[in-house]
């Protein structure tokens, strides 16, 4: 097939050259080539790997403070553990969308951020001194939500929780299992990038399995599912008869009054998405090759008349405002004034529309699943 493609391509080229050799080339109608590899390099070198490194160091810190807490559970080590958990959870928001390469292979995002957790199963795991968490049923028993439960949820106040660890060493044992699992998974994903990086940046062909297309699909999928649905949609009851305040992200920390973090998490998640969309490594850095520059390129070449890139950037700002209108404690927000949650959901939904229809249509990302004749 490859050689066939080359042969046909050459014959088409020669036919065009023969038939057009007389025509002048003074027209400025050529579309310059867009460098997709530059987008991937920017993403890999300035965004994905630095973010994974950040996440890794916060996981290291988390593990250290976890070990310290297990050794001597008291309010000082507890506070340290909570702080390091929060830092890791915030840094996680910057990497969850990259479900590609090793991350996809080991189901990194399912293992790290499946919530709500399965309390009953965690209790069983604790009592059975379970050490292997690879069963998919254990995805809701580990990762950052699992830690949220272990650090903030096994009793109803800081002191009671600390007491639980003093009285029952099995709690500390399981906490350590969860911390080690998270740490191992993070190592696997991060280390793989040293070799995967070059494959990644050169995998730009328009096939269902190229890195460029997979990253694009992951990005849109994450925005719709991980961000819009999980963080706002499900708790606010968009997909159910009633609001489900127990399904907010980082539920136990809010519930037991330790710290209200759900809004911080989604704020960071939206910022993370915004930076990827614009190709920025941080809010201060200039925009680089990205989905947005690709959309700008497509517009500049009249393939589309609309400025999808700017539309999305503006809508992200609007959505950010709607999120900042929310209470830092999503449980309270859902239970007391859910309409604001729904407003935030709608603001995110309009972005999903542009990403999923306009952007994917213009990129014409291949989904070679079955034959099609374009209808």
């Amino acid at each position, binding site marked *: 097939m490859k050689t066939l493609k080359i042969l046909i391509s050459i014959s088409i080229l020669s036919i065009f050259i023969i038939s057009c050799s007389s025509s002048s080339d003074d027209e400025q109608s050529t579309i310059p080539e867009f460098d997709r590899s530059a987008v991937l390099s920017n993403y890999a070198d300035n965004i994905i790997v630095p973010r994974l490194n950040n996440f890794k160091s916060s996981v290291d810190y988390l593990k250290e403070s976890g070990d310290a807490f297990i050794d001597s559970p008291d309010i000082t080590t507890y506070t340290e553990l909570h702080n390091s958990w929060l830092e890791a959870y915030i840094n996680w928001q910057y990497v969850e969308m990259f479900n590609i390469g090793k991350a996809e292979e080991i189901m990194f995002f399912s293992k790290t951020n499946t919530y709500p957790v399965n309390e009953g199963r965690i209790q069983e795991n604790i009592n059975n001194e379970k050490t292997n968490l690879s069963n998919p049923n254990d995805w809701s028993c580990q990762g950052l939500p699992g830690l949220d439960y272990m650090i903030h949820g096994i009793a109803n106040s800081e002191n009671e929780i600390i007491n639980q660890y003093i009285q029952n060493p099995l709690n500390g044992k399981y906490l350590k299992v969860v911390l080690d699992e998270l740490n191992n998974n993070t190592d696997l994903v991060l280390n793989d990038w040293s070799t995967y990086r070059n494959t990644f940046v050169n995998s730009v062909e328009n096939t269902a399995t190229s890195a460029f297309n997979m990253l694009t699909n992951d990005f849109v999928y994450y925005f719709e599912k991980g961000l819009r649905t999980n963080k706002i*949609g499900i708790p606010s009851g968009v997909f159910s*008869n009633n609001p489900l305040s127990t399904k907010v992200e980082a539920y136990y920390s809010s519930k037991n009054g330790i710290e209200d973090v759900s809004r911080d998490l989604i704020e960071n998640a939206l910022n993370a998405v915004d930076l990827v969309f614009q190709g920025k490594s941080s809010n201060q850095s200039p925009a680089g090759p990205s989905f947005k520059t690709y959309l700008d390129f497509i517009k500049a070449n009249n393939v589309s008349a609309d400025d999808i890139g700017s539309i999305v950037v503006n809508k992200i700002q609007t959505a950010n405002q709607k999120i900042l209108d929310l209470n830092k404690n999503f449980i309270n927000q859902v239970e007391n004034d859910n309409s604001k949650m729904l407003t935030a959901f709608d603001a995110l939904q309009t972005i999903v529309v542009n990403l999923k229809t306009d952007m994917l249509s213009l990129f014409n990302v291949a989904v070679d699943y079955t034959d099609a*004749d374009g209808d």
Partner: protein
Amino acid sequence: MNTTIKNYLNQTQDSSSLALFRMGFGVLMTLSMIRFISKGWVEKLYLEPSFHFSFYGFEWVKPFGDMTYLLFLVCCVSAFFVAIGYKYRISIIIFFLSFTYIELMDKTTYLNHYYFISILSFLMIFLPANSYYSIDSKIKGYEFEKIPKWCTDCIKMLLFIVYFYSGLAKINSDWLIEAQPLKIWLTSSYDLPIIGSTLMQQNWVHYAMSWGGMFYDLFIAFLLLYSRTRIFAFFLVVFFHLFTAILFPIGMFPYIMIVGSLIFFDQKTHKKMIKIIDFILKFFGFKSKKIKRLKLNSNNNSIVLSIVAVFFIIQLCFPFRYLLYPGELFWNEQGYRFSWRVMLIEKKGITNLKVLNKEDGKSFMVMNEEFLSEFQERQMSFQPDFILEYAHHVGEYYKKNGMNEIEIYADSYVTLNGRLSQRFVDPNVNLMNEKRGFKNKTWILALDDEITGL
């Protein structure tokens, strides 16, 4: 007038033309079915989804579990029997029925070329394609030298309709003035060797291919009919279809059209081709013994002739049914299918249903993945009849699960040929109250733009 028709019907054609076509068709169909099964599509498209989108009136046509494989097997074997001309009449009938049944099982997989296969195989039921060079004739001990000329002409006619009508469909402002959707598709074929980053990115190439494609479709059948342009036209056919084969994921279609257009060659060429095939078969040890040759296998049964005539009247009129509907055809897609509108629109949508329980006034959105496969969701999201059928299916599901009084609304956005996405379905219309059928769907919001043309 009557005598002209009579004279025409009495004209004859060498029976090798139809025999060759039969073999080409049978072989390609056999390969198609093997390809389809081996790609795992039976499982993915017909067994995995819990729900299937039906053509209106054909709701009873459904996959039947693992036995669906048997259906594909029957279809494949009957295609092979057609190829070798064994029990031809019953084989082509079984092929037509099984193939059509497969296509009716789920309209998510609808493709124009599947429809083409269905109606072509229907037509072939009435053609004496086993008159010559077939197992049937070897068994009977005689074959026919001649068949009526209309038997090959009607295949040409069908091919003419496919090409010409798809050419007519290209006469619209999106295709000719905006060069859409080719502009989107060609620029994103950047990964083709050599031409991907060069030619495919040129504005003039997009226009050249749009206009070229239209002229090709409109005139290729004429060029094939006229003996002095035939060879040139056939090269065009091969070039055009191989090009589309590398550009788009259109499966077997290009090869079917290339082999199909061989029918336009004269009978001498067909005779030669049969000789070559005979030679090759002999080389592999299949000796065909000489059998008695009779003159003419006349097929001019008035029932057959009237069926074929009615068939073509329908084929000529059916694609124009869109004129009965108001609104933009590419947007509303009312009367879009079965009309040789191929590769005309780049459409993507996002559609979510909201279920309102009238008993307690509460509502919720449906997660599409709970009901549909990814492929079904993608197709459903921009096609109104899919959205309505899906809404009804979801409605029935929740009714069965204890909600007696429900309403269903769609939150739906669609982009068409590079236009900014806009709301597609009126969000205030309860889709449970809308009946399926051929009536104008008033709940589709109008496209904010105008596409002129046929």
